[in-house]
């Protein structure tokens, strides 16, 4: 099995580099400065994992993939069970009970709507304006992308991280999580198997 990590970070290596260097990874650790992977798989949060088999087929679509229980308050799921599932798949391949039936995989796919597609295009424009020195002009576009796909924590947290979230967006991560008032921060993991 190969692990491939992809950093979703508009600031690219400037933002993600120190984490990658500190981890000294032996697997490909890629940088996705324009959310290409997030768009193609319609990812709305991190950490998100996709299981892909030897034929390049998705056997588990996007799902919450924390490596440990540091965020259990948010995840409400014992991630050691998820790690055990990955090991089971690594050993048993398609015989692993965690490889989902094709019907179940399709059911779980997060298919984008026209609004999501517009959100992604708008976010890309906002990133470009921010990157080319027009941070003020980028803010309303980031907001529009967030409004078009409110379930995307990527669009929110990335925009907040690029600037002073309180000043430009009147909010921050802690406030937004508090506003969930008990609703899950991340789609709960349904391990199956």
């Amino acid at each position, binding site marked *: *099995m*190969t*692990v*491939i*990590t*992809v*950093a979703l*970070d508009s*600031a690219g*290596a400037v*933002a993600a580099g120190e*984490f990658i*260097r500190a981890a000294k990874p032996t697997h*490909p650790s*890629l*940088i*996705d400065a324009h959310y*290409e*992977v*997030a*768009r*193609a*798989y*319609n*990812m709305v949060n*991190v*950490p998100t*994992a*996709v299981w*892909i088999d*030897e034929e*390049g*087929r*998705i056997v588990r*679509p996007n799902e919450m*993939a924390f490596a440990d229980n540091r965020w259990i308050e948010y995840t409400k799921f014992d991630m050691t069970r998820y790690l055990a599932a990955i090991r089971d798949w*690594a050993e048993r391949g398609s015989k692993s009970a965690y490889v989902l039936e*094709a019907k179940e995989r*399709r059911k779980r*796919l997060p*298919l*984008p*709507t*026209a609004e*999501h*597609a*517009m959100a992604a*295009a*708008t976010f*890309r*424009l906002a990133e*470009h*304006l921010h990157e080319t020195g*027009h941070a003020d*002009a980028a803010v309303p*576009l980031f907001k529009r992308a967030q409004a078009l796909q409110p379930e995307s924590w*990527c669009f929110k947290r*990335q925009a*907040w*991280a690029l600037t002073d979230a309180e000043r430009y967006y009147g909010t921050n991560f802690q406030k937004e999580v508090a506003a969930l008032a008990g609703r899950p921060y991340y789609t709960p993991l349904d391990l199956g198997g």
Partner: protein
Amino acid sequence: MGALTAVILLPDRAVTVTGEAEADALWLAPAELAKAGGWELKPEGLCRGSLCVPVPQGASWVRGRGGDVRVDLVGLSRHMGQPVAASLEHAAWSVGLAAEDVADRLRSLDAPDFSLPDLDGRTHTLSSFRSRKVFLLAWASW
């Protein structure tokens, strides 16, 4: 509006073209249109790779003929179901992926391919890992 240099943000890259902005439209000559997403004007219509779409009679996003033909990238993209976000002030047009195309690809269960750099600038392509299982993990510093 006069001629302007426009940045076109495509799903996997950004390109610069020369065109003419007018209201909501960005009019491009064929050579510029080819840069902005690979569209080529042929007798059978507009083609990108092996895909050709006929230009509907009276399409509002094509004007002129022969050497003077111009295509409005915004109108064409919308015709193809691709979302467009633009900032005329900053001469930037973002042309996204059509929701239906992304959805069809996902429904096939073939993992969408991508090529991205690592910290050393070396490019890695997902499909080059065929014959191995891949645990693909997206994370972020924020």
